[in-house]
């Protein structure tokens, strides 16, 4: 029905009216999109420009080739592929851990009425105002101390980094997930309880599956967030080339060396960006609903 109506209306629009109400909207869209995509284009073009020289680069290279990619993969001082692997592993493990810790705590905060519940919620909220990155100095000193006794919690170890991030998980995700759980009618759990389900069965078999779309968004956003984290990662992983993530490694690779490393750098940036952008496009709908969830609730 509705579609038919829209079709009828669209037919009515004359060219003159289109020019007046629509053309400038397209123009605005074109200009903004050009601005939005330019860095991506420029990066892609540089990566295929075999000269790899920033000063002579054109938007469309004269003789496109893969030389930059070869240089990138074969630089023993800057192990791009190892950084890439580190990033994927650290971000992947961390995204799942963060989601799980947040999802679990949020279940208790949403479904159980226990002593100290309000205090916990308020505390989490206040703690969130002190992001871990402001405490980078003390996290550094703390790991220096712990690492003397426990090797996997030492500076330079990626497990230490993952555990530090896991410590921040509750603060980041618990509130958002609690809000979502609150929208799941509690009659569902109660009827399951009558059927003899234990609390863990309700959680794992009913609540978690229902929350799947939100959990997917949290995993995606934590994944991207960890890939992009620079400050804590560089403080904790330090200067060991083989344990760095892409974010820190690429920064060290290009810092002050735009002239020499521009071509291979853009090749690396392209490889790392494209999958993330595509993934984001696919999950766009969910991400957008996650972003606006906070605003429509208040």
């Amino acid at each position, binding site marked *: 029905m509705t579609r038919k109506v829209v079709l009828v209306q669209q037919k009515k629009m004359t060219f003159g009216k289109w020019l007046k109400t629509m053309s400038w909207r397209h123009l605005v869209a074109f200009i903004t999109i050009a601005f939005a995509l330019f860095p991506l284009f420029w990066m892609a073009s540089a990566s295929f420009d075999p000269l790899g020289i920033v000063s002579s680069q054109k938007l469309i290279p004269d003789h496109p080739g893969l030389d930059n990619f070869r240089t990138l993969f074969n630089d023993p001082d800057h192990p791009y592929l190892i950084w890439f692997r580190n990033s994927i592993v650290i971000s992947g493990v961390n995204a799942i851990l963060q989601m799980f810790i947040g999802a679990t705590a949020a279940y208790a905060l949403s479904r159980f009425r226990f002593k100290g519940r309000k205090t916990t919620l308020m505390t989490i909220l206040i703690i969130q105002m002190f992001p871990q990155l402001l405490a980078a100095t003390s996290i550094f000193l703390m790991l220096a101390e712990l690492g003397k006794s426990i090797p996997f919690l030492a500076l330079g170890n990626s497990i230490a980094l993952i555990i530090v991030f896991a*410590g921040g998980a509750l603060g980041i995700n618990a509130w958002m997930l609690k809000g979502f759980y609150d929208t799941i009618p509690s009659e569902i759990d109660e009827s399951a309880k009558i059927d003899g389900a234990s609390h863990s069965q309700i959680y794992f078999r009913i609540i978690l599956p229902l929350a799947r779309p939100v959990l997917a968004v949290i995993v995606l956003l934590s994944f991207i967030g960890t890939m992009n984290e620079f400050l804590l990662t560089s403080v904790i992983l330090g200067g060991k080339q083989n344990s760095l993530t892409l974010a820190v490694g690429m920064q060290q690779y290009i810092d002050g060396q735009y002239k020499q490393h521009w071509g291979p750098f853009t090749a690396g940036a392209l490889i790392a960006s494209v999958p993330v952008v595509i993934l984001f496009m696919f999950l766009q709908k969910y991400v957008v609903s996650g972003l606006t969830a906070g605003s429509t609730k208040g």
Partner: protein
Amino acid sequence: MRSFSHKTPALLVKIILLGALNAFTFWAVPILLSHKTWFFAAYFVISTILIDYVFLNSKRIAGKYIVPGVILLLLFQVYPALFTGYIAFTNYSTGHFLDKESAIEVMVSNSYELVNDDAIYSMQIAKDRLSGEIALIIRDKDGSFLAAKKSGTSKIPTSAITPGSDGKVSAVEGFKLLSDAELMSIIEQFNDFYVPAGGNQFFRVADFNAVEKVQPVLAYDKAKDQITNISTGVTYRPDKNGSMVSADGEEIEPGWTTTVGWRNFTKVATDQRYRGPMGLVLAWTFSYAALVVLSTFFFGLVLALVLNHPRLKLRRVYRSLLIVPYAMPSVLSLLVWAGMFNEEFGVINRMLHTSIPWLSDQWMAKVAVLIVQLWAGTPYMFLISTGAIQALPSEIVEAAAVDGASPQKVFWNIKLPLVLMTLTPLLIASYAYNFSNFGAIYLLTGGGPTIISSGGIAGHTDILISYTYKLAFMSGKGNDYGLASAVSFFNFLLVASISIYSFRKSRTMENMI
């Protein structure tokens, strides 16, 4: 109908995880204690007991879900926050890392000097045949021999010595002399080889053929809490800054960690090297965050209004393309932008046929930072604005139109206020986020160009968090963790005030708990 019966695998997982945790604690705590890491040892023990209790007690249901996360939160977010607060009141920095006791030990042991000018003895290294201990066979000044082990020295009777050709011994009863090759393999052991030689004197290995008799020049008197230089007679007393200082102001390295009250804070407010830069950094932090939020929100809202027309074709395609900057990994896009802004060969100057000093002029660097954030932040604002506009209750808008309000009036008096109301919490959150957006500054300009009066530490585009990072990890004269934590603490107070204000203002709290 689902069946809810199979409990065994879950129980197994629970037992394995709890077992692993307990095993870890049993393994880690003794090591922590041996390093005198009391706090963490206690924390691990208490946490493990708590988790065991919660998971083995069927009544503590809520605890099972929340305790593990809270334990991690306390250790890695609350403790660092409190620790930051503590360090802000100490002089923790390069040269002040140790506690007082260890620092004095280091001072004394750094001060060993020869007892007198010819206190050098020829020596050969051997191994005790019975115990396998390393022993130094030392020829005393009177021609007699000593066997010096780490535990102490003993005389060797002349009868036990077989003299060799070049003034050396060729064999000693009860000892096995080591060859050069054997020595090379254990060379590290001699770095710190001191043998007590009576009084406060020691034999120290100088090389493979000689020892020196040394004694510390500095002596610590615990009762008076002072250090005396034995050869010059100068006394050093502790000052408020955790150093031993003589009356002439001469300091002994290293110092120790001590609380210094508000000194880090007053230093930022009064010290010439920090006051000026701090003022600039603070002003830029506030205005940078405000400008970013305002400009991105303005453009995001306008875009949302322009593109949210029901009859605009390609609307979805436009939206997908517009959010690419938001989807791109920000570290990489910032570094790409830094390349594009490069003054000599960056694309921006080349396209405009200019040579604008984008990153080396303080104002142009600020403009560059804002342009990049406009690029990076607008998509987010566009998305949330679109969401808010689409969520507008259509009845109100229609009612106003029926009442004869013009589209402009409907927009200014109804749509815009409603959109602003829904988005205010997100805008304030965005302000708080930008306030400490380290990467946006550090990866693009590195905080530069440098503020000259800051001694090279602060830059004109530095915000508080990047200034903190530089104070802590990058200043040439060593790392001042105390000062960095003070600035960090200050940053926290500002962000917290902004957030609390926002929650007050938007009153989202009451109906969410």
